[in-house]
């Protein structure tokens, strides 16, 4: 049975294009143009994943409101923001509301599909027993690639898919400097340097929230970042 994806996007052309691409990828797509319409339909039957634009017609922050309502209905429903806005403020706001990922409209369709697949994989893996080959352990860090979960010193760190991939890319080869392009590739992002910087900043903050002494991600100015393991 195909996965059902709800797509809420106010621009008709983009909506149709994304819907077509998702349908071609084998998903069942429900497309909505605004929040009330989406809420009416989704309240009765939750989709398997929701892709939401932030600005919905007249509602500038309609997407945020919709995300809040959906999250209130289901704590596990994967939600992706897809927006033309690329300011840190919007990204942080979106992720704080409980979205699993945030993509700008610069992202190509293959990137979007990869991200959706990754989210589904995470949801499914959460239901299955852990497999060792998907696990990566670096000192106090444990990464489960199937579930896309990160654990630091025994405590879970709530990373988005993008962040998870960045941490995995760094931690796979400790001590090696990963430049921004590599990180971008590994995390399947199409963004500029500044966004990588703010992503790294957010990742550090999330780790710091569980462990105030966290300093495993080192900035190498002009080159990128590296994972350091304390002896």
């Amino acid at each position, binding site marked *: 049975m195909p996965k059902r994806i709800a797509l809420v996007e106010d*621009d008709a*052309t*983009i909506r149709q*294009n*994304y819907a*077509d*691409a998702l349908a*071609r990828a084998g998903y069942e797509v429900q497309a909505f143009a605004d929040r009330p319409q989406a809420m009416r339909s989704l309240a009765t039957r939750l989709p398997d994943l929701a892709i939401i634009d932030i600005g919905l017609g007249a509602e500038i922050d309609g997407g945020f409101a919709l995300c809040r309502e959906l999250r209130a209905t289901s704590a596990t429903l994967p939600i992706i923001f897809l927006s*033309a*806005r*690329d*300011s*840190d*403020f919007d990204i942080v706001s979106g992720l704080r509301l409980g979205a699993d990922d945030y993509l*700008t*409209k*610069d992202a*190509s*369709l*293959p990137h979007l599909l990869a991200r959706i697949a990754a989210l589904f994989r995470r949801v499914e893996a959460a239901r299955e027993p852990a497999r060792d080959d998907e696990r990566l352990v670096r000192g106090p860090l444990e990464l489960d690639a199937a579930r896309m979960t990160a654990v630091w010193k025994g405590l879970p760190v709530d990373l988005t898919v993008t962040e998870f991939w960045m941490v995995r890319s760094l931690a796979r080869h400790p001590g090696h400097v990963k*430049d921004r392009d590599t990180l971008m590739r590994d995390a399947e992002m199409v963004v*500029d*340097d*500044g966004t990588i*910087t*703010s992503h790294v900043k957010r990742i550090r903050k999330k780790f710091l929230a569980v462990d105030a002494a966290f300093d495993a991600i080192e*900035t*190498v*100015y*002009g*080159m*990128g970042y590296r994972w350091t393991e304390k002896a």
Partner: protein
Amino acid sequence: MRAAFVHGIRFRLLLSALVLLAIPALAAQFISRMEAFLRGAQEQDLAVTARAVASALSDRPALFPPAGGEPGDPEDEERRRIVGLFAAADPVAAASLGTAYMPSEEIERFLDIMGRRASRAWVVDTRSRVRGLSGSLREPPPAKGEPPRATIMSWLKPVVSLIVSSPEVPAGDESKPVRSQVDRALIGVASTHWRGTRDREVAILSAAQPIFVGDDIVGAVVVEETTASILLLRQSALENLIAVTLAVCLAAFAILLFFASRLATRIRRLHAEAEAAIDAQGRIRGDITLTGAKDEIGDLERTIAGVLGRLRDYNAYLEQMASRLSHELRTPVAVVRSSLDNLRSQSPGGEARVYLDRAGEGVERLSRLISRLSEGTRLEKMLESAEREPFDLAAVVRGCVEGYRGAYPGRAFECVVPPAPVAMTGVPDAFAQLLDKLVENALDFAPADKPVRVVLATDGRRARLSVSNEGPPIPPAMLPRLFDAMVSGRDEGAGRGGHLGLGLTVVRLVAEFHGGSARAMNLPEGRGVVFEVEAPLA
């Protein structure tokens, strides 16, 4: 400074205040009119006195017994001469009448009764005998304790004489006028006459009147008076006038000067603030402090503040325009991109694939461009929310240059960094981004075989980071605007298409965020271009 004063408000106000000087001039004019009037009155007065004396002596044949001797008596001639000399003599000089003085007690008593202060009256009969003499033209000595008036007046005399014209009085000690006056009185013609004395200021007025017995003229009365009393009056009036008008003028000048200085100070302050409000690049830096004054300068302050405010809003609007524009452009780009992606997934073959790839490339470029449009605004937002932390700028620069060597293996980098840490407070990532932009810019301009020089220096208070390349010089007109958004020194179409001169805006924003500044200079003799960023140390 002097030229500034001459063209200043103060000078002009003082200049126009010179009009005030017309007041003492007018008043002095008035005083001299008054003096003339007083002289006229004195003349009439004296004539009346002479007539009164004459009529009192008239018709008293006892006083003028018929003279013995012949009319052609040589003694008469001698007496005429003596009387003439006496009449003309200076009042100060003691003149003796000698043999011409033949007083009659009664006449002298008469004259004493009728006489006036500071005047002299005498009676001559037809044979030039002075029959009575009374009074003196000498001033009574001034009362004790009166202040010496000479000082102020003696200074001001040249000035006063310019303004006040003394009535014209014939000078000299000529005896003729009085003698002829006596002669004319003796044939029945009454007259008054002014004559000068050695003291230029003082004149003597004389009035002659015939004395009749019946129809015969038996003698003449001459009454003389000096103008000293009028002079005294005039002098004290002038002194008062000058003292008062001087005080008024000084007060008026002082008030005007104070007022003008205050005005000038306020205008200068406004001028300085308005000047400082907008920097050389036309960005609004300062503000006008409103004093709340209700006058025209207050209005001007409010207007300038308003204009600055509107200009600031407009600048903000322009700056936001880039980011708004980029936001608006994203959606249509997403339409094209998603359409191309869809088309590609249909796996078309042959030529269609080529064009599809080209279209994709074009969209890529467009999207990069759009993202750069909002780079400045995004960076500003990032800096606003960023936390300042202490960092070592030397380490950042060293690391970055190491990175560039890896990223651009074909290019040479020279790097001069002090061995000791260069401690700063700020956002190290932003500084790295700043250096990225400067180096990117230098690489685009420098000839491929020439190195890019990165130099970090410090003088203990400020750090100076410069990136120089041996590329072609920048047109001087471009230099000040180089760090503004949308300005690029590049030729059209060169570079990777993603440049809209926003890179250098980033440099400026980061430098200013760290309390520093950025500037570009051409090296002498066209040896290249250097971009310099200066910022205070921690």
